[in-house]
């Protein structure tokens, strides 16, 4: 027996074991490894080895015996199986493994079985030699099982990380395209729900009330999850604690776990986000807590910035309108002039194909162009009748004064051009610098046309308003002289289209025009 006793080539053995055991979760499984032969063959060659795995050592041993019997075409009396040894020349050993069962290794030497008699020569030494191999093999089986189990655990972790990383990549990509704080909040909390495997998450707002966000594909948005967190009374103390500590907590309630964390928004307001997990989905781990903490911190930062941006934008608009209101207070004849100036400037800029961001700047120039009038004495500004030469020289100061007032606001840029140059004329006869043609910035040329039109159609201290058609006519006559021709044409087109296509808006914005038209229509 010693001559044919298999000496296990470990690599081959391992490879074969791995093939058979690569799905260890489905144990018990049975696999075959063949020693001394490079390929699998259904009929075992002279030396064969079989590895069985199973929950019950007896069953494993018994299955091993069956295999040996089949391999050897020889019936084995299972009652003869004692002490891990098969009597008829077979060596059998069964060991417990960490796979939750026993592993057994059986070795047969076919040549000795085939003739039906177990050769016993030199037995004692050979058998212990054989058993030594079997022991080694069994230990290898066990170790391989352990490694596979560890691998499977690692794989689970990596797969889960992939899933999370993917969701986070997606989230950052999508958030970059959203500029509305509520939309970002929705996106963020849907992703948190998906990452945690929760049906939905609930947000308890610092302003009272709560909002619910669905998990996968946003299903369940606005629908209360199984755990009715829309009733916040049972978790009030938890909410208070999170507002105070700003830390993520896992909380047990009615046999279910809730994970809760802070979403810090503008002005240090703390919303509290809750998620629960259906029974059978396992407890929240420290990994989940870290995930919630970092996602809420990241999301809260973005939401805060967005809200801050929105607040600043609104505030600058409000400040602009406050300044405009100050001009109109000073000279009540021009009431509404600035508002109309802003609107018509934008309309004309649009018609000229000015990019959207610049249209906004130009609208501001239209709104603020007369702010310098704040510095002009009221008796001159509101004087009924003709101005003296000296008085007119004072009035001519207003573009420069407006420029000086606004200059400290660095972000106004182009707006300053509009304010300073809105009384420059293409023929160079304007003020304050006497610029000509293309020297005059576009924004100033637009504001000038709009300003002229609005001045003509408004009643002033010294004269009645002209009718709209008459005002347009006057401007047309001045084209190329005191009015920029290209801008004037764009203004005519934009104004006519606006009046035709949006009569409702027009009537609301320019009530005086409607009245003057009615008056004009009368014989």
């Amino acid at each position, binding site marked *: 027996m010693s001559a044919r006793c298999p000496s296990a080539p470990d690599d081959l053995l391992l490879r074969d074991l791995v093939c058979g055991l*690569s*799905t260890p979760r489905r144990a018990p499984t049975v696999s075959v490894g063949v020693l001394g032969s490079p390929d699998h063959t259904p009929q075992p060659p002279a030396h064969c080895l079989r590895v069985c795995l199973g929950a019950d050592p007896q069953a494993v041993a018994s299955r091993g015996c069956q295999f040996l019997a089949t391999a050897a075409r020889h019936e084995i009396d299972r009652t003869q199986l004692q002490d891990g040894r098969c009597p008829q020349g077979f060596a059998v050993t069964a060991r417990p493994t960490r796979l939750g069962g026993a592993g057994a290794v059986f070795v047969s030497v076919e040549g000795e079985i085939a003739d039906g008699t177990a050769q016993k020569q030199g037995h004692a030494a050979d058998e212990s030699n054989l058993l030594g191999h079997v022991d080694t093999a069994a230990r290898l089986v066990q170790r391989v099982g352990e490694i596979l189990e560890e691998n499977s655990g690692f*794989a689970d972790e990596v*797969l889960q990380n992939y899933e999370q990383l*993917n969701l986070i*990549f997606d989230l950052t990509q999508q958030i970059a395209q959203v500029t509305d704080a509520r939309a970002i909040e929705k996106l963020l909390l849907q992703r948190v729900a998906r990452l945690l495997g929760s049906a939905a998450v609930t947000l308890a707002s610092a302003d009272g009330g709560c909002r619910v966000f669905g998990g996968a594909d946003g299903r369940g948005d606005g629908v209360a999850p199984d755990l009715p967190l829309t009733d916040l009374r049972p978790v009030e103390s938890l909410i208070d604690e999170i507002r105070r500590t700003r830390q993520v907590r896992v909380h047990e309630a009615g046999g279910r776990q809730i994970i809760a964390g802070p979403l810090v928004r503008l002005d240090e307001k703390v919303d509290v986000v809750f998620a629960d997990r259906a029974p059978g989905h396992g407890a929240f781990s420290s990994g989940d807590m870290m995930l919630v903490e970092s996602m809420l911190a990241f999301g809260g930062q973005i939401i805060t910035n967005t809200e801050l941006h929105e607040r600043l934008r609104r505030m600058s608009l409000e400040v602009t309108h406050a300044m405009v209101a100050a001009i109109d207070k000073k000279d009540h004849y021009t009431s509404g002039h600035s508002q109309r100036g802003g609107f018509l400037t934008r309309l004309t800029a649009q018609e000229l194909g000015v990019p959207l961001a610049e249209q906004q700047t130009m609208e501001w120039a239209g709104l603020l162009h007369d702010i310098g009038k704040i510095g002009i004495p009221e008796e001159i500004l509101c004087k009924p009748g003709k101005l003296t030469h000296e008085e007119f020289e004072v009035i001519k100061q207003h573009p420069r004064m407006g420029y000086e007032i606004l200059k400290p606001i660095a972000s106004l840029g182009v707006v300053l051009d509009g304010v300073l140059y809105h009384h420059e004329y293409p023929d160079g006869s304007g003020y304050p610098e006497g610029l000509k043609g293309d020297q005059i910035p576009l924004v100033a040329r637009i504001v000038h046309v709009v300003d002229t039109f609005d001045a003509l159609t408004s009643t002033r201290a010294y004269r009645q308003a002209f009718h709209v058609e008459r005002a347009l006519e006057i401007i047309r006559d001045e084209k190329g002289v005191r009015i920029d021709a290209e801008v004037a044409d764009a203004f005519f087109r934009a104004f006519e289209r606006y009046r035709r296509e949006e009569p409702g808006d027009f009537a609301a914005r320019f009530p005086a025009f409607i009245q003057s038209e009615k008056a004009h229509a009368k014989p």
Partner: protein
Amino acid sequence: MSRVLVVEDDPHILRLISMWLKRQGHDVREARNGLAARELLNAEPTDVLVTDVNMPGWDGLALIEAALPMGQVQRGIVVLTNRWDHGEIRDRLAQWHVHVLPKPFSPARLSELVESLTTAGAGDSPGSVVASAPRPEEGV
């Protein structure tokens, strides 16, 4: 259960994908590059091909170009790309009906795709026009 051929040059990712798909009950074969995959396909076609793009030697695109006209991929193709090449690869593959997943891919999304490819109607062979609208992260 369907036959899936996974082609990926990084052995760890290859092992991971194949382990994941085996767990979903698929019959998985592995190849480390396009040429090895081609040999496996010559021996036996596959239902679904899951392939990386950037591989030494024959890359994923060359594999697709060679295997598709031969009918060696019978149900569908999932291409894994890195995020930087994602848009470009998707454009290059626009002529075929393939699904493109950016790495790190979502395992759930991958198994969902493989599942949907193998259970879809018989008419949906790769290269044909498919009625269902693709999700944004996928190809055409």
